[in-house]
């Protein structure tokens, strides 16, 4: 079975490009050109140089000794939190801004949930001298205030999405509407492996550097180039897609995804799409989607803004449906416990999104000689207000 996108833009039953005609010329231009653009050696050289000198890649693969001891297995942390701007998101924005330049665009629009993708977009726009407008849910603007300030400091315009649940889904709607209204000069940098084809594949390719490095680094450290498990959190699924990418066809590696179960999968306050969703169309692709019987999108809930999304990328829907990926629902509480544990055992404060991946150790029961790689997708600075509040750090 293939886990790559096919000619029609599908992963199994999921994917496609369900877009209004207004977006067709832009998406079609991207679809017909992205593979050639990415394959161009000049592009590759520019992309590699920026990842090295601007982002700070390769990121370390760190053996987490105290976590390993606690769970009696070999745990490695892939340190995407050490990327410039503090999360994996920048791998994608560096790639897409170079694509945008080659498409002759001089303005960028983006959506953001946690603000990490917004910051990563604002950062590359500053670097390349492009105008940047970021849509962010009004609720997220509040709960991720430091990132809003960072985007503005970088010269981006941050616009509040006030419709619906006022979170990532609505920010994405607004970004798409902005693109419809500015089709000629603007490129839309989607922040995850969602959206119409070719976005899921393009973003996965830009994030695939994560698993490419894991392979090389594991070879050096363990004498084999694959782990027994790769664990990553899934909002839209870009850090997971990147961490899984080079292991998709490696049967010895189990692919483990952590979704946000909020207050509990069946609490009515959750974002655990594979547990609660069924096939549907949102933001330009067919995938698993949390929705009512009538096909209205359900407003999800998670303590983590970056996972507070009612869908997942079509690649992940296919991994789920085919059984290739295993999905866990992690509650707010479990994520908070895992965040404290990683902070206090390893000296690394993770992002709330990442904490969901770290909470999987508890459930995994890996064997002592097995190798577990968890993608540490981002650092927790942006979440300090939530941590202070929920963990009573100031009392």
């Amino acid at each position, binding site marked *: 079975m293939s886990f790559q996108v096919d000619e029609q833009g599908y992963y199994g039953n999921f994917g496609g490009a369900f877009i209004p005609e207004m977006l067709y*010329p832009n998406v079609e231009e991207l679809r017909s050109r992205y593979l050639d653009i990415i394959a161009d050696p000049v592009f590759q050289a520019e992309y590699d140089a920026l990842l090295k000198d601007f982002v700070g890649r390769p990121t370390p693969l760190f053996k987490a000794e105290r976590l390993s001891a606690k769970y009696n297995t070999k745990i490695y942390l892939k340190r995407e939190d050490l990327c410039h701007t503090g999360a994996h998101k920048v791998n994608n924005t560096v790639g897409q801004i170079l694509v945008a330049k080659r498409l002759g665009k001089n303005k960028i629009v983006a959506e953001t949930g946690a603000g990490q993708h917004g910051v990563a977009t604002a950062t590359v726009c500053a670097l390349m001298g492009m105008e940047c407008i970021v849509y962010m849910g009004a609720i997220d603007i509040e709960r991720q205030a430091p990132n809003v300030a960072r985007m503005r400091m970088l010269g981006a315009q941050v616009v509040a999405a006030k419709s619906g649940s006022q979170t990532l889904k609505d920010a994405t709607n607004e970004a798409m509407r902005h693109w419809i209204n500015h089709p000629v000069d603007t490129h839309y940098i989607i922040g995850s492996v969602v959206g119409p084809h070719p976005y899921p594949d393009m973003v996965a390719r830009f994030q695939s550097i994560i698993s490419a490095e894991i392979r090389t680094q594991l070879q050096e450290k363990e004498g084999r180039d694959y782990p027994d498990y790769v664990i990553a959190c899934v909002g839209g699924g870009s850090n997971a897609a990147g961490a899984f990418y080079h292991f998709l066809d490696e049967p010895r590696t189990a692919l483990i995804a952590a979704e946000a179960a909020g207050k509990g999968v069946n609490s009515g306050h959750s974002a655990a799409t594979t547990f609660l969703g069924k096939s549907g169309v*949102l933001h330009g692709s067919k995938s698993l989607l949390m929705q009512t019987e*009538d096909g209205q999108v359900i407003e999800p809930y998670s303590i983590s803004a970056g996972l507070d999304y009612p869908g997942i990328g079509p690649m992940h829907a296919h991994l789920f449906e085919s059984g290739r990926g295993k999905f866990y629902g992690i509650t707010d509480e479990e994520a908070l416990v895992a965040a404290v544990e990683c902070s206090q055992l390893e000296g690394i404060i993770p992002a709330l999104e990442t904490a969901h991946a770290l909470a999987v150790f508890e459930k995994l029961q890996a064997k002592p000689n097995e190798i577990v790689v968890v993608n540490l997708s981002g650092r927790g600075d942006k979440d300090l207000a939530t941590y202070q509040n929920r963990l009573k750090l100031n009392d």
Partner: protein
Amino acid sequence: MTKMNRISALFSKAKEPILNVYTTAGYPHFEDTMTVLTALQEGGVDIIEIGMPYSDPVADGETIQQSNQASLDQGMSVAHLFTQLKDLRQTITVPVLLMGYINPVLQYGVEAFCAKCAAIGIDGLILPDLPMAEYEREYKAIFEAHGLFNIFLITPQTTDERIRHIDSVSKGFIYMVSSASTTGAKTGISSDQETYFERIASMNLQNPRLIGFGISDHSSFMKASKNASGAIIGSAFVKLIGQATDLRAEIVDFVQSIKGKK
């Protein structure tokens, strides 16, 4: 198909510009759907487009978004809408289109949805996020079996080649979006837009065209109709009914004033 689709019949006999008005189902109030349709017909509308509300209407601007949400908040769904429309053809004789996003249709079931539309007397569908390639691959046969026209959109950015292809798979009319925008984003018609209208008019397409987006009054309606068979009004109408105190009278008045009959 036994009889001629009402849309084809209309275009083949129309002598004056055709007015198509969009209204959101269940808006301003849940039970208003049939009242609005009846008043539109009384005012002299030529085609009615009923919006099936959706939680995430990405091609729509604020006015239509808010009407969608207001309708959903009052409990509207595809199933409820079908119930409200069950006696549609006892009063409404003009062609009726359903407009909406693909996901609610998928959840209802494409086959069941089309069968229901045919039973009620719906003439066609406008599903902006159903792409042409997908339509041809998976939906066309089902739509056609139920005598439903699928109305495609074109925009100023659509290439001539694609317009020709859309023309070849279209039935009824082609929905010409007047500018690159979401609904309700702009009002009035600029000279650039007129150039675009003329360019399309000179392509001699086999299907007639209606122009939508930015049409709000008699003057923009007439301007658009110079280079097409007529025009479509959405946001301006939804805004009106959202504020109306005498729904029926204000709708009749609005339609008549757009058509210059007042």
